[in-house]
Protein backbone atom coordinates (compact mmCIF):
# COMPACT_ATOMS: atom_id res chain seq x y z
CA UNK A 1 0.00 0.00 0.00
CA UNK A 2 1.12 3.54 -0.64
CA UNK A 3 1.12 5.84 2.39
CA UNK A 4 1.25 9.56 2.87
CA UNK A 5 2.41 11.53 5.89
CA UNK A 6 0.25 14.09 7.66
CA UNK A 7 2.34 16.65 9.51
CA UNK A 8 1.54 19.72 11.56
CA UNK A 9 4.12 21.98 13.18
CA UNK A 10 4.20 24.01 16.37
CA UNK A 11 6.87 26.66 16.31
CA UNK A 12 8.05 28.50 19.40
CA UNK A 13 9.66 31.79 18.47
CA UNK A 14 11.34 34.02 21.02
CA UNK A 15 10.21 37.60 20.72
CA UNK A 16 13.25 39.77 21.14
CA UNK A 17 11.96 42.54 23.33
CA UNK A 18 14.19 44.52 25.67
CA UNK A 19 12.41 43.27 28.76
CA UNK A 20 10.55 40.10 29.70
CA UNK A 21 6.89 39.35 28.98
CA UNK A 22 5.46 40.22 32.40
CA UNK A 23 8.28 41.97 34.27
CA UNK A 24 11.01 44.51 33.44
CA UNK A 25 13.97 42.09 33.71
CA UNK A 26 16.30 42.37 30.68
CA UNK A 27 15.99 39.84 27.87
CA UNK A 28 19.17 38.51 26.33
CA UNK A 29 18.98 36.27 23.32
CA UNK A 30 21.58 33.83 24.56
CA UNK A 31 21.51 33.37 28.31
CA UNK A 32 24.38 30.88 28.03
CA UNK A 33 27.02 33.55 28.62
CA UNK A 34 25.25 35.10 31.60
CA UNK A 35 25.88 34.12 35.23
CA UNK A 36 22.81 32.19 36.42
CA UNK A 37 19.84 34.09 37.88
CA UNK A 38 21.24 37.52 36.97
CA UNK A 39 18.14 38.86 35.23
CA UNK A 40 15.53 37.55 37.63
CA UNK A 41 13.07 39.40 39.84
CA UNK A 42 10.30 38.31 42.20
CA UNK A 43 7.77 38.25 39.33
CA UNK A 44 9.65 35.86 37.02
CA UNK A 45 10.89 33.86 40.01
CA UNK A 46 7.23 33.19 40.85
CA UNK A 47 7.29 34.72 44.33
CA UNK A 48 3.88 34.90 46.03
CA UNK A 49 2.13 38.24 45.94
CA UNK A 50 3.73 39.53 42.74
CA UNK A 51 1.74 40.93 39.85
CA UNK A 52 2.66 40.31 36.19
CA UNK A 53 2.10 43.20 33.78
CA UNK A 54 1.94 42.68 30.01
CA UNK A 55 4.76 44.01 27.82
CA UNK A 56 3.08 46.13 25.13
CA UNK A 57 5.86 45.70 22.61
CA UNK A 58 5.66 41.90 22.83
CA UNK A 59 1.95 42.11 22.04
CA UNK A 60 2.63 44.44 19.13
CA UNK A 61 5.28 42.16 17.66
CA UNK A 62 2.99 39.16 18.05
CA UNK A 63 0.14 40.96 16.28
CA UNK A 64 2.50 42.08 13.51
CA UNK A 65 3.64 38.50 13.03
CA UNK A 66 0.02 37.39 12.92
CA UNK A 67 -0.77 40.02 10.30
CA UNK A 68 2.23 38.96 8.20
CA UNK A 69 0.90 35.39 8.38
CA UNK A 70 -2.51 36.58 7.15
CA UNK A 71 -4.16 35.89 10.52
CA UNK A 72 -7.30 37.46 11.90
CA UNK A 73 -6.74 39.41 15.10
CA UNK A 74 -9.82 38.84 17.29
CA UNK A 75 -11.07 41.89 19.21
CA UNK A 76 -10.58 40.26 22.61
CA UNK A 77 -7.58 38.24 23.75
CA UNK A 78 -6.97 36.65 27.09
CA UNK A 79 -4.13 35.04 29.03
CA UNK A 80 -4.59 31.69 30.76
CA UNK A 81 -2.70 29.62 33.28
CA UNK A 82 -1.37 26.29 32.07
CA UNK A 83 -0.65 24.28 35.20
CA UNK A 84 2.01 21.62 35.52
CA UNK A 85 4.88 20.90 37.85
CA UNK A 86 8.39 21.06 36.53
CA UNK A 87 11.38 22.66 38.24
CA UNK A 88 12.05 25.05 35.36
CA UNK A 89 8.58 26.55 35.87
CA UNK A 90 8.73 28.60 39.08
CA UNK A 91 5.04 29.40 39.52
CA UNK A 92 3.77 25.85 38.94
CA UNK A 93 1.97 27.23 35.89
CA UNK A 94 2.96 28.90 32.67
CA UNK A 95 1.14 32.03 31.59
CA UNK A 96 -0.08 31.21 28.10
CA UNK A 97 -3.19 31.66 26.00
CA UNK A 98 -5.89 29.10 25.41
CA UNK A 99 -9.37 30.02 24.32
CA UNK A 100 -8.70 33.53 23.10
CA UNK A 101 -5.31 33.67 21.34
CA UNK A 102 -4.00 36.88 19.74
CA UNK A 103 -3.99 35.53 16.18
CA UNK A 104 -6.17 32.93 14.40
CA UNK A 105 -6.88 31.50 10.92
CA UNK A 106 -3.83 32.50 8.92
CA UNK A 107 -1.64 30.84 6.35
CA UNK A 108 1.81 30.76 4.85
CA UNK A 109 2.49 29.84 1.22
CA UNK A 110 5.48 27.62 0.54
CA UNK A 111 7.22 26.60 -2.67
CA UNK A 112 7.15 22.89 -3.45
CA UNK A 113 8.15 20.88 -6.51
CA UNK A 114 4.51 20.88 -7.56
CA UNK A 115 4.24 24.65 -7.18
CA UNK A 116 2.96 26.95 -4.45
CA UNK A 117 1.19 25.28 -1.55
CA UNK A 118 -0.77 26.97 1.22
CA UNK A 119 -0.13 25.83 4.79
CA UNK A 120 -2.93 26.96 7.08
CA UNK A 121 -2.08 28.43 10.45
CA UNK A 122 -4.57 27.59 13.17
CA UNK A 123 -3.43 30.14 15.71
CA UNK A 124 -0.51 32.05 17.14
CA UNK A 125 -0.50 32.81 20.84
CA UNK A 126 1.77 34.41 23.39
CA UNK A 127 3.34 32.69 26.33
CA UNK A 128 6.34 32.93 28.62
CA UNK A 129 9.46 30.80 28.31
CA UNK A 130 10.56 28.51 31.15
CA UNK A 131 13.93 28.55 32.91
CA UNK A 132 16.86 26.29 32.13
CA UNK A 133 17.67 23.05 33.91
CA UNK A 134 21.13 21.61 34.24
CA UNK A 135 21.24 17.95 35.20
CA UNK A 136 24.23 17.39 37.42
CA UNK A 137 24.25 13.59 37.28
CA UNK A 138 24.50 13.33 41.08
CA UNK A 139 20.77 13.20 41.75
CA UNK A 140 20.39 16.96 41.64
CA UNK A 141 19.52 19.52 39.01
CA UNK A 142 20.33 23.23 38.90
CA UNK A 143 17.75 25.81 37.90
CA UNK A 144 18.65 29.07 36.16
CA UNK A 145 15.74 31.47 35.63
CA UNK A 146 17.41 34.01 33.30
CA UNK A 147 15.26 32.76 30.45
CA UNK A 148 12.09 32.38 32.54
CA UNK A 149 9.49 34.90 31.42
CA UNK A 150 11.05 35.69 28.03
CA UNK A 151 8.18 36.25 25.57
CA UNK A 152 7.44 33.42 23.15
CA UNK A 153 5.08 33.26 20.24
CA UNK A 154 3.72 29.79 19.58
CA UNK A 155 2.64 29.40 15.97
CA UNK A 156 0.49 26.33 15.31
CA UNK A 157 -0.14 25.03 11.80
CA UNK A 158 -2.89 22.76 10.55
CA UNK A 159 -1.71 19.23 9.61
CA UNK A 160 -1.27 20.38 6.00
CA UNK A 161 2.25 19.13 5.27
CA UNK A 162 2.80 15.81 3.49
CA UNK A 163 6.57 15.39 3.34
CA UNK A 164 9.83 16.31 5.03
CA UNK A 165 10.53 18.72 2.16
CA UNK A 166 7.29 20.58 2.87
CA UNK A 167 8.03 20.71 6.58
CA UNK A 168 11.44 22.23 5.93
CA UNK A 169 10.04 24.65 3.33
CA UNK A 170 7.45 25.83 5.87
CA UNK A 171 9.92 26.08 8.76
CA UNK A 172 12.54 27.97 6.76
CA UNK A 173 9.98 30.36 5.29
CA UNK A 174 8.56 31.04 8.73
CA UNK A 175 12.12 31.60 9.98
CA UNK A 176 12.66 34.08 7.15
CA UNK A 177 9.44 35.92 8.02
CA UNK A 178 10.37 36.19 11.70
CA UNK A 179 13.75 37.68 10.83
CA UNK A 180 12.22 40.12 8.32
CA UNK A 181 9.74 41.20 10.98
CA UNK A 182 12.53 41.69 13.50
CA UNK A 183 10.82 39.28 15.91
CA UNK A 184 14.18 37.69 16.60
CA UNK A 185 17.64 37.24 15.11
CA UNK A 186 16.88 33.85 13.61
CA UNK A 187 20.01 32.51 15.28
CA UNK A 188 19.03 28.85 15.68
CA UNK A 189 22.05 28.05 17.83
CA UNK A 190 20.74 30.45 20.45
CA UNK A 191 17.43 28.60 20.51
CA UNK A 192 15.37 31.55 19.27
CA UNK A 193 13.19 29.16 17.26
CA UNK A 194 12.18 25.68 18.42
CA UNK A 195 9.87 23.10 16.87
CA UNK A 196 7.41 20.38 17.78
CA UNK A 197 6.17 18.16 14.97
CA UNK A 198 2.93 16.16 14.95
CA UNK A 199 3.33 13.24 12.58
CA UNK A 200 0.90 10.56 11.46
CA UNK A 201 0.58 8.47 8.30
CA UNK A 202 -2.41 7.15 6.34
CA UNK A 203 -3.11 5.38 3.05
CA UNK A 204 -2.40 7.83 0.23
CA UNK A 205 -5.52 9.71 -0.79
CA UNK A 206 -7.43 8.94 2.43
CA UNK A 207 -8.91 11.74 4.55
CA UNK A 208 -8.40 9.95 7.85
CA UNK A 209 -6.51 11.61 10.69
CA UNK A 210 -4.75 8.77 12.46
CA UNK A 211 -3.24 8.79 15.95
CA UNK A 212 -0.11 10.90 15.84
CA UNK A 213 3.27 11.07 17.44
CA UNK A 214 4.24 14.44 18.82
CA UNK A 215 8.00 15.00 18.63
CA UNK A 216 9.09 17.53 21.27
CA UNK A 217 12.01 19.92 21.60
CA UNK A 218 13.54 20.08 18.15
CA UNK A 219 16.08 22.88 18.07
CA UNK A 220 17.42 22.80 14.52
CA UNK A 221 16.18 22.34 10.96
CA UNK A 222 18.40 19.27 10.80
CA UNK A 223 16.82 17.64 13.86
CA UNK A 224 13.38 18.57 12.51
CA UNK A 225 14.05 16.97 9.12
CA UNK A 226 15.71 13.85 10.48
CA UNK A 227 13.15 13.17 13.21
CA UNK A 228 10.14 13.65 10.92
CA UNK A 229 11.73 11.42 8.25
CA UNK A 230 12.39 8.79 10.90
CA UNK A 231 8.83 8.96 12.24
CA UNK A 232 7.23 8.63 8.80
CA UNK A 233 9.37 5.63 7.97
CA UNK A 234 8.88 3.87 11.28
CA UNK A 235 5.11 4.47 11.38
CA UNK A 236 4.73 3.04 7.87
CA UNK A 237 6.84 0.05 8.86
CA UNK A 238 4.69 -0.49 11.96
CA UNK A 239 1.46 -0.41 9.95
CA UNK A 240 2.84 -2.70 7.26
CA UNK A 241 3.74 -5.26 9.89
CA UNK A 242 0.15 -5.13 11.15
CA UNK A 243 1.01 -2.95 14.16
CA UNK A 244 -0.97 -0.08 15.64
CA UNK A 245 0.10 3.53 16.22
CA UNK A 246 -0.96 5.00 19.55
CA UNK A 247 -0.96 8.70 20.23
CA UNK A 248 2.27 9.46 22.04
CA UNK A 249 4.81 12.11 22.92
CA UNK A 250 8.28 11.38 21.58
CA UNK A 251 11.73 12.74 22.20
CA UNK A 252 14.42 12.94 19.51
CA UNK A 253 17.68 11.14 20.23
CA UNK A 254 20.11 13.01 18.03
CA UNK A 255 23.05 10.66 18.50
CA UNK A 256 21.11 7.49 17.75
CA UNK A 257 18.97 9.15 15.10
CA UNK A 258 15.70 7.76 16.48
CA UNK A 259 12.63 9.03 18.32
CA UNK A 260 11.92 7.55 21.75
CA UNK A 261 8.63 7.57 23.69
CA UNK A 262 8.67 9.95 26.66
CA UNK A 263 7.43 8.04 29.68
CA UNK A 264 6.20 9.10 33.07
CA UNK A 265 4.29 12.14 31.86
CA UNK A 266 0.81 10.67 32.01
CA UNK A 267 -0.52 13.93 33.39
CA UNK A 268 1.26 16.06 30.84
CA UNK A 269 -1.93 16.93 28.99
CA UNK A 270 -3.98 17.70 32.07
CA UNK A 271 -3.13 21.39 32.12
CA UNK A 272 -6.37 22.74 33.65
CA UNK A 273 -6.25 26.00 31.71
CA UNK A 274 -8.22 28.88 33.15
CA UNK A 275 -8.14 32.66 32.59
CA UNK A 276 -5.33 34.25 34.61
CA UNK A 277 -7.05 36.54 37.14
CA UNK A 278 -3.85 38.63 37.38
CA UNK A 279 -4.10 39.75 33.77
CA UNK A 280 -7.17 41.67 32.60
CA UNK A 281 -8.19 40.77 29.03
CA UNK A 282 -6.87 42.73 26.07
CA UNK A 283 -9.32 44.59 23.90
CA UNK A 284 -7.55 45.06 20.62
CA UNK A 285 -9.00 47.98 18.73
CA UNK A 286 -9.17 47.89 14.95
CA UNK A 287 -7.31 51.19 14.92
CA UNK A 288 -4.38 49.60 16.76
CA UNK A 289 -4.35 46.64 14.36
CA UNK A 290 -4.35 48.95 11.33
CA UNK A 291 -1.56 51.04 12.81
CA UNK A 292 0.51 47.88 13.25
CA UNK A 293 -0.35 46.67 9.76
CA UNK A 294 0.85 49.98 8.34
CA UNK A 295 4.17 49.49 10.13
CA UNK A 296 4.87 46.06 8.61
CA UNK A 297 8.18 45.89 6.73
CA UNK A 298 8.40 44.57 3.18
CA UNK A 299 8.07 40.79 3.52
CA UNK A 300 9.96 38.15 1.53
CA UNK A 301 7.20 37.46 -1.02
CA UNK A 302 6.74 41.13 -1.83
CA UNK A 303 10.48 41.70 -2.00
CA UNK A 304 10.92 38.74 -4.33
CA UNK A 305 8.23 40.08 -6.65
CA UNK A 306 9.91 43.49 -6.64
CA UNK A 307 13.34 41.98 -7.43
CA UNK A 308 11.84 40.15 -10.41
CA UNK A 309 10.01 43.25 -11.62
CA UNK A 310 12.57 45.98 -10.97
CA UNK A 311 15.85 44.14 -11.44
CA UNK A 312 14.84 41.65 -14.12
CA UNK A 313 15.92 38.67 -12.01
CA UNK A 314 14.66 35.14 -12.52
CA UNK A 315 12.19 33.85 -9.93
CA UNK A 316 14.86 31.41 -8.81
CA UNK A 317 17.59 34.01 -8.26
CA UNK A 318 15.17 36.40 -6.57
CA UNK A 319 14.10 33.57 -4.26
CA UNK A 320 17.72 32.83 -3.33
CA UNK A 321 18.40 36.48 -2.54
CA UNK A 322 15.32 37.21 -0.44
CA UNK A 323 15.36 34.00 1.63
CA UNK A 324 17.49 35.81 4.17
CA UNK A 325 16.81 39.43 4.90
CA UNK A 326 20.52 40.15 5.40
CA UNK A 327 21.35 38.76 1.95
CA UNK A 328 18.59 40.77 0.26
CA UNK A 329 19.83 43.90 2.06
CA UNK A 330 23.40 43.08 0.98
CA UNK A 331 22.30 42.78 -2.64
CA UNK A 332 20.46 46.09 -2.69
CA UNK A 333 23.24 47.84 -0.83
CA UNK A 334 25.76 46.59 -3.40
CA UNK A 335 23.53 47.80 -6.25
CA UNK A 336 23.24 51.25 -4.71
CA UNK A 337 27.01 51.62 -4.40
CA UNK A 338 27.97 50.65 -7.94
CA UNK A 339 29.77 53.36 -9.88
CA UNK A 340 29.56 51.49 -13.19
CA UNK A 341 26.56 50.39 -15.20
CA UNK A 342 26.84 46.74 -14.16
CA UNK A 343 23.53 44.92 -14.61
CA UNK A 344 21.49 44.00 -11.50
CA UNK A 345 21.41 40.47 -12.94
CA UNK A 346 25.24 40.37 -13.02
CA UNK A 347 25.40 41.55 -9.41
CA UNK A 348 22.90 38.83 -8.43
CA UNK A 349 25.12 36.26 -10.18
CA UNK A 350 28.15 37.43 -8.21
CA UNK A 351 26.29 36.97 -4.94
CA UNK A 352 24.44 33.70 -5.59
CA UNK A 353 27.55 32.28 -7.28
CA UNK A 354 30.93 33.38 -5.97
CA UNK A 355 29.90 35.05 -2.70
CA UNK A 356 27.72 32.09 -1.62
CA UNK A 357 30.46 29.64 -2.61
CA UNK A 358 33.09 31.52 -0.59
CA UNK A 359 30.70 31.89 2.36
CA UNK A 360 30.37 28.11 2.32
CA UNK A 361 34.11 27.57 2.04
CA UNK A 362 34.85 30.04 4.82
CA UNK A 363 31.97 28.80 6.95
CA UNK A 364 30.57 32.30 7.39
CA UNK A 365 27.30 34.11 6.82
CA UNK A 366 26.78 37.22 4.70
CA UNK A 367 28.04 39.37 7.56
CA UNK A 368 31.42 37.66 7.15
CA UNK A 369 31.58 38.51 3.43
CA UNK A 370 33.35 41.66 2.17
CA UNK A 371 31.00 44.63 2.73
CA UNK A 372 28.69 45.71 -0.12
CA UNK A 373 30.86 48.77 -0.90
CA UNK A 374 33.83 46.49 -1.59
CA UNK A 375 31.88 44.02 -3.69
CA UNK A 376 30.55 46.99 -5.69
CA UNK A 377 34.14 48.19 -6.24
CA UNK A 378 35.18 44.73 -7.48
CA UNK A 379 32.23 44.50 -9.86
CA UNK A 380 33.07 47.99 -11.14
CA UNK A 381 36.65 46.89 -11.86
CA UNK A 382 35.35 43.98 -13.92
CA UNK A 383 32.70 46.10 -15.61
CA UNK A 384 35.14 48.81 -16.71
CA UNK A 385 37.61 46.22 -18.00
CA UNK A 386 40.38 46.82 -15.43
CA UNK A 387 40.33 43.12 -14.66
CA UNK A 388 38.65 40.21 -16.41
CA UNK A 389 35.96 38.03 -14.89
CA UNK A 390 38.26 35.18 -13.88
CA UNK A 391 40.73 37.52 -12.21
CA UNK A 392 37.74 39.12 -10.47
CA UNK A 393 36.82 35.78 -8.96
CA UNK A 394 40.36 35.28 -7.71
CA UNK A 395 40.40 38.79 -6.25
CA UNK A 396 37.14 38.10 -4.41
CA UNK A 397 38.67 35.00 -2.84
CA UNK A 398 41.52 37.13 -1.59
CA UNK A 399 39.12 39.80 -0.32
CA UNK A 400 37.40 37.09 1.77
CA UNK A 401 40.61 35.86 3.33
CA UNK A 402 42.54 39.12 3.75
CA UNK A 403 39.73 41.63 4.15
CA UNK A 404 41.53 43.99 1.77
CA UNK A 405 39.78 45.94 -0.96
CA UNK A 406 39.61 44.86 -4.60
CA UNK A 407 41.52 47.90 -5.81
CA UNK A 408 44.35 47.31 -3.32
CA UNK A 409 44.68 43.67 -4.33
CA UNK A 410 44.62 44.47 -8.05
CA UNK A 411 47.25 47.17 -7.70
CA UNK A 412 49.61 45.37 -5.36
CA UNK A 413 49.53 42.13 -7.29
CA UNK A 414 49.57 43.76 -10.73
CA UNK A 415 46.42 41.99 -11.76
CA UNK A 416 45.11 44.72 -14.02
CA UNK A 417 43.97 43.32 -17.33
CA UNK A 418 46.29 43.71 -20.29
CA UNK A 419 44.34 45.51 -22.98
CA UNK A 420 47.43 46.90 -24.65
CA UNK A 421 47.07 45.61 -28.21
CA UNK A 422 50.77 45.87 -29.11
CA UNK A 423 51.86 43.97 -25.99
CA UNK A 424 49.27 41.26 -26.53
CA UNK A 425 50.18 40.93 -30.22
CA UNK A 426 53.75 40.14 -29.20
CA UNK A 427 52.61 37.52 -26.71
CA UNK A 428 50.27 35.89 -29.24
CA UNK A 429 53.09 35.73 -31.77
CA UNK A 430 55.43 34.17 -29.19
CA UNK A 431 52.86 31.51 -28.31
CA UNK A 432 52.21 30.65 -31.96
CA UNK A 433 55.96 30.46 -32.66
CA UNK A 434 56.40 28.21 -29.66
CA UNK A 435 53.78 25.69 -30.78
CA UNK A 436 54.27 25.14 -34.53
CA UNK A 437 52.76 21.62 -34.45
CA UNK A 438 49.48 22.79 -32.95
CA UNK A 439 49.35 25.74 -35.32
CA UNK A 440 49.77 23.41 -38.33
CA UNK A 441 47.11 21.06 -36.97
CA UNK A 442 44.74 23.96 -36.44
CA UNK A 443 45.30 25.26 -39.91
CA UNK A 444 44.67 21.82 -41.40
CA UNK A 445 41.22 21.74 -39.81
CA UNK A 446 41.56 20.81 -36.14
CA UNK A 447 39.70 23.95 -35.11
CA UNK A 448 39.10 22.86 -31.51
CA UNK A 449 42.78 23.66 -30.86
CA UNK A 450 41.79 27.34 -30.88
CA UNK A 451 40.65 27.11 -27.26
CA UNK A 452 43.89 25.46 -26.27
CA UNK A 453 45.97 28.16 -27.97
CA UNK A 454 43.85 30.81 -26.31
CA UNK A 455 44.56 29.12 -22.96
CA UNK A 456 48.31 29.31 -23.67
CA UNK A 457 48.08 33.05 -24.25
CA UNK A 458 46.03 33.60 -21.09
CA UNK A 459 48.58 31.54 -19.20
CA UNK A 460 51.45 33.57 -20.60
CA UNK A 461 49.76 36.67 -19.17
CA UNK A 462 48.90 35.02 -15.84
CA UNK A 463 45.26 35.23 -16.81
CA UNK A 464 45.35 39.01 -17.02
CA UNK A 465 44.77 39.44 -20.74
CA UNK A 466 41.50 40.86 -21.96
CA UNK A 467 39.98 37.64 -23.31
CA UNK A 468 37.96 39.34 -26.05
CA UNK A 469 41.05 41.07 -27.37
CA UNK A 470 43.12 37.87 -27.23
CA UNK A 471 40.48 36.09 -29.24
CA UNK A 472 40.54 38.72 -31.95
CA UNK A 473 44.33 38.89 -32.16
CA UNK A 474 44.70 35.11 -32.17
CA UNK A 475 42.20 34.74 -34.97
CA UNK A 476 43.91 37.44 -37.01
CA UNK A 477 47.42 35.98 -36.60
CA UNK A 478 46.29 32.41 -37.34
CA UNK A 479 44.53 33.55 -40.50
CA UNK A 480 47.66 35.49 -41.46
CA UNK A 481 49.69 32.28 -41.17
CA UNK A 482 47.18 30.36 -43.28
CA UNK A 483 47.71 32.63 -46.25
CA UNK A 484 51.41 32.96 -45.55
Amino acid at each position, binding site marked *: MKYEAVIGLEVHAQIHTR*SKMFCPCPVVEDTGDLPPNTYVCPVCAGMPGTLPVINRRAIEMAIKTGLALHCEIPPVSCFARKSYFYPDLPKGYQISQYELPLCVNGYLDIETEEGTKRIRITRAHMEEDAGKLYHMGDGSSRVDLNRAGVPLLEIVSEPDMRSVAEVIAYATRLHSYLVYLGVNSGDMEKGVMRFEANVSVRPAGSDALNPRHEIKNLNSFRALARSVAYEIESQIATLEQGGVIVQQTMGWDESRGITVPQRGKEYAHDYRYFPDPDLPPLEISRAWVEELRAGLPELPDARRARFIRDYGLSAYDAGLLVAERAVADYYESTLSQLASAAEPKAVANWITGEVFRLMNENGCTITGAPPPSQLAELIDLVQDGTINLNTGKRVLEEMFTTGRSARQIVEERGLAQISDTAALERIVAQVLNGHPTEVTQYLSGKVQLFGWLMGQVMRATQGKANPQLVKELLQAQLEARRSG
Partner: protein
Amino acid sequence: MILSREEVKHIAALARLALDEQEVALYQEQLSTILEYFGRLQALDTGAIPPTATVLPIRNVMRDDEQVLSSTPEEILANAPAADEGCFSVSAVLET
Protein backbone atom coordinates in the same frame (compact mmCIF):
# COMPACT_ATOMS: atom_id res chain seq x y z
CA MET B 1 -21.58 11.92 44.39
CA ILE B 2 -20.48 13.67 41.23
CA LEU B 3 -16.78 13.00 41.68
CA SER B 4 -15.41 9.50 41.89
CA ARG B 5 -12.66 8.52 44.32
CA GLU B 6 -10.39 7.98 41.35
CA GLU B 7 -10.98 11.53 40.13
CA VAL B 8 -10.16 12.94 43.55
CA LYS B 9 -6.93 10.97 43.61
CA HIS B 10 -6.08 12.16 40.12
CA ILE B 11 -6.65 15.81 41.06
CA ALA B 12 -4.58 15.32 44.20
CA ALA B 13 -1.76 13.84 42.16
CA LEU B 14 -1.86 16.83 39.77
CA ALA B 15 -1.51 19.14 42.77
CA ARG B 16 1.19 16.92 44.27
CA LEU B 17 -0.92 16.27 47.38
CA ALA B 18 -0.56 13.01 49.27
CA LEU B 19 -4.02 12.16 50.64
CA ASP B 20 -4.92 9.27 52.91
CA GLU B 21 -8.16 7.36 52.36
CA GLN B 22 -10.06 9.45 54.92
CA GLU B 23 -9.03 12.66 53.22
CA VAL B 24 -9.98 11.26 49.83
CA ALA B 25 -13.49 10.62 51.19
CA LEU B 26 -13.68 14.07 52.77
CA TYR B 27 -12.62 15.91 49.60
CA GLN B 28 -14.78 13.71 47.44
CA GLU B 29 -17.76 14.99 49.38
CA GLN B 30 -16.66 18.62 49.58
CA LEU B 31 -15.62 18.92 45.95
CA SER B 32 -18.79 17.16 44.82
CA THR B 33 -20.86 19.71 46.72
CA ILE B 34 -19.02 22.53 44.98
CA LEU B 35 -19.51 20.91 41.59
CA GLU B 36 -23.20 20.40 42.32
CA TYR B 37 -23.49 24.08 43.03
CA PHE B 38 -21.83 24.89 39.70
CA GLY B 39 -24.27 22.46 38.14
CA ARG B 40 -27.05 24.74 39.30
CA LEU B 41 -25.34 27.71 37.64
CA GLN B 42 -24.93 25.59 34.52
CA ALA B 43 -28.72 25.26 34.34
CA LEU B 44 -29.19 29.01 33.93
CA ASP B 45 -29.72 30.36 30.45
CA THR B 46 -26.68 32.57 29.77
CA GLY B 47 -27.26 32.82 26.04
CA ALA B 48 -27.60 36.59 26.19
CA ILE B 49 -24.56 37.14 28.39
CA PRO B 50 -21.11 37.43 26.79
CA PRO B 51 -18.41 35.03 28.08
CA THR B 52 -16.63 36.65 31.00
CA ALA B 53 -12.95 36.05 31.71
CA THR B 54 -12.79 38.58 34.53
CA VAL B 55 -15.08 40.46 36.85
CA LEU B 56 -12.80 43.50 36.88
CA PRO B 57 -13.89 46.48 34.83
CA ILE B 58 -10.35 47.11 33.54
CA ARG B 59 -8.78 46.15 30.20
CA ASN B 60 -5.45 46.57 28.43
CA VAL B 61 -3.17 46.94 31.42
CA MET B 62 0.24 47.07 29.78
CA ARG B 63 3.68 48.48 30.42
CA ASP B 64 6.32 49.93 28.12
CA ASP B 65 9.15 47.65 27.08
CA GLU B 66 11.74 49.02 29.48
CA GLN B 67 14.39 47.26 31.52
CA VAL B 68 14.68 47.53 35.27
CA LEU B 69 17.06 45.45 37.34
CA SER B 70 15.39 44.88 40.65
CA SER B 71 17.06 41.95 42.38
CA THR B 72 20.49 40.48 42.83
CA PRO B 73 21.02 36.74 42.38
CA GLU B 74 21.67 36.55 46.14
CA GLU B 75 18.27 38.09 46.90
CA ILE B 76 16.55 35.76 44.47
CA LEU B 77 18.20 32.73 46.03
CA ALA B 78 17.80 33.92 49.63
CA ASN B 79 14.71 31.82 50.34
CA ALA B 80 15.74 28.80 48.30
CA PRO B 81 15.86 25.61 50.36
CA ALA B 82 19.02 24.70 48.46
CA ALA B 83 21.28 26.61 46.12
CA ASP B 84 24.40 25.67 44.22
CA GLU B 85 26.76 27.85 42.13
CA GLY B 86 24.19 30.63 41.80
CA CYS B 87 21.40 28.23 40.85
CA PHE B 88 18.41 26.82 42.66
CA SER B 89 19.20 23.23 43.47
CA VAL B 90 16.44 20.65 43.15
CA SER B 91 16.12 16.88 43.11
CA ALA B 92 16.91 15.56 39.65
CA VAL B 93 13.99 15.26 37.30
CA LEU B 94 13.95 11.98 35.46
CA GLU B 95 14.64 12.80 31.82
CA THR B 96 13.00 10.16 29.73
